[in-house]
């Protein structure tokens, strides 16, 4: 059973129908790219998956989104654990108004993770990323001697995972808003991962970044997809071709085509998809 199944999803803002009857499965452990012209409902579809869409005004959602078989729109559903499980990375990174350290520690703290649980979380993370040194032995040893050393270690591991540690290790108490936009986005990725999500939703995560930071984020996604299901909204076809395994093409709120990225992005069946990837509709 796939992690995420979308069944007859309809979303409207007031009288405007943004998504018209979407039914699709999103494969596990892969990067799924949602592509389509501006205003076709890509972001709406993405935000429907962890109910962030409900923060918008006058929004109405019909249909089901099943995650691990549970309908997230069930009135009994636990929205807090849903959002913990399905992390979100926005287009423009938005640091929390606190230090770099606290930006990472905030999520685990509100979910009440401490002491031994933190060490278990770090072990799990190391298993997930065997080729990546997220927790060097010397960091672990020094952390053990300090008070609240576990949280320090957790912050270090996630910053290393996001490739940000070397740039910020000497200024963890500095305001996160002082970082560059590219660094802020990697911080946002680390913060999203720090609450142990299983799915990562990313809404054009590289669109406001410089090419180098964008490449770093793409590399992170390539590495993370082994353990996380990644859904990516992107405007650039080249990015989709570079990193996506699966692709969904939306046009005016309807799903026109979906399938393996190699097929949808290079040899599509539908005329509209052809027109989009050849640049005729933007």
């Amino acid at each position, binding site marked *: 059973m796939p992690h995420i199944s979308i069944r007859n999803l309809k979303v409207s803002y007031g009288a405007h129908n943004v998504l018209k009857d979407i039914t699709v499965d999103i494969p596990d452990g892969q990067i799924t790219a949602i592509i389509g012209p501006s205003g076709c409902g890509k972001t709406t579809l993405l935000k429907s998956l962890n109910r962030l869409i409900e923060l918008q005004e006058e929004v109405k959602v019909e249909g089901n989104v099943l995650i691990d078989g549970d309908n997230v729109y069930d009135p009994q559903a636990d929205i*807090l654990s849903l*959002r913990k499980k399905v992390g979100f990375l926005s287009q423009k990174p*938005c*640091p929390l*108004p*606190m230090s770099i350290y606290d930006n990472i520690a905030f*999520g685990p703290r509100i979910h009440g993770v401490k002491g031994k649980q933190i060490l278990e979380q770090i072990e799990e993370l190391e298993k997930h990323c065997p080729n990546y040194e997220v927790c060097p032995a010397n960091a672990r040893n020094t952390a053990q001697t300090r008070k609240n050393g576990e949280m320090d270690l957790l912050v270090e591991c996630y910053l290393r995972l996001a490739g940000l540690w070397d740039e910020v290790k000497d200024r963890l108490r500095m305001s996160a*808003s002082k970082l560059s936009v590219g660094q802020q986005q990697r911080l946002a990725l680390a*913060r999203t991962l720090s*609450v142990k999500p299983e799915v990562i939703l990313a809404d054009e995560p590289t669109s406001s970044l410089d090419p180098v930071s964008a490449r770093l984020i793409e590399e992170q996604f390539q590495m993370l997809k082994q353990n996380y299901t990644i859904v990516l909204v992107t405007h650039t076809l080249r990015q989709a071709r570079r990193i996506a395994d699966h692709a969904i093409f939306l046009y005016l709120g309807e799903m026109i085509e979906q399938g393996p990225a190699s097929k949808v992005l290079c040899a599509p069946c539908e005329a509209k998809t052809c027109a989009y990837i050849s640049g005729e509709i933007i």
Partner: protein
Amino acid sequence: MDRLLEERLFKTLMLSSLTMVVGSLFAVVAVVVLNGAPALTPSMLTQTPKGGYYLGKEGGILNAIIGSLYLAFGSVLLALLISIPAALSLQRDYIKKTKVAYSIRLSLDVLWGTPSIVYGAFGFTVMLYLGMRASLLGGIIVLTLLQIPIMIRAIDETVKLVPAELKETSYALGTTRFETTFKIVIIQVLPGIATAVLLAFGRSIGDAASILFTAGYTDNIPGSLLDPAASLPLAIFFQLGTPFPEVQQRAYASALVLLVIVLVVSVASRALGQRFSKHILR
């Protein structure tokens, strides 16, 4: 029209407005200082009025200084405790219907513009009904009522400026509305809270009409919340009302004390505001 002429014309216009504002402020301060400074003796600040003080004999206005500080700080504290949650509850996160929030804001604006003597009369009526005497407590409560609309609206305006992306980022980590509001949004509105405190403090320490009947006036320093309390605005009023020039001079000296208190509180709250707002997003 010649654009350079336009530029010059408006520069002159702006500068003359500014000169008028600063000039009239300066004139007020100058009158107070010139008239008040000679009468401002150490005994004015350290003694309560002795018999015949209002005829030009010995004594000071310590009763009014202490009374005003009790009244102002007591009411600011009480008003803050009520206004912060009230202002935060006006967010769309809590009140979904924008019309309801709109009407609440409108009524607060009307209350803001209500003359303070109306608050005084209201407070006096309630106190008569409850069989209370004019007291420090009565004054604090009426001043609190006077400040609440100012504080709520001042804080509310900064809450409205909190970026939607910030709340979205916070909710995406699986936070409750309470955690988002009281751990994230509130950090971002701290400068707004400092401004609100300043506005409300200024209004409450300078107001005479609302406390005339509710706090009363006395030559003693209040020993409990149920004792009547003197205040600087009323001390100024009573002293200016005497036919003796030396007592009228003391009124100016009292006004000078009031100005200095407002200045000190303004500088202090600004400094505190900056200290606590180092992490906020700009």
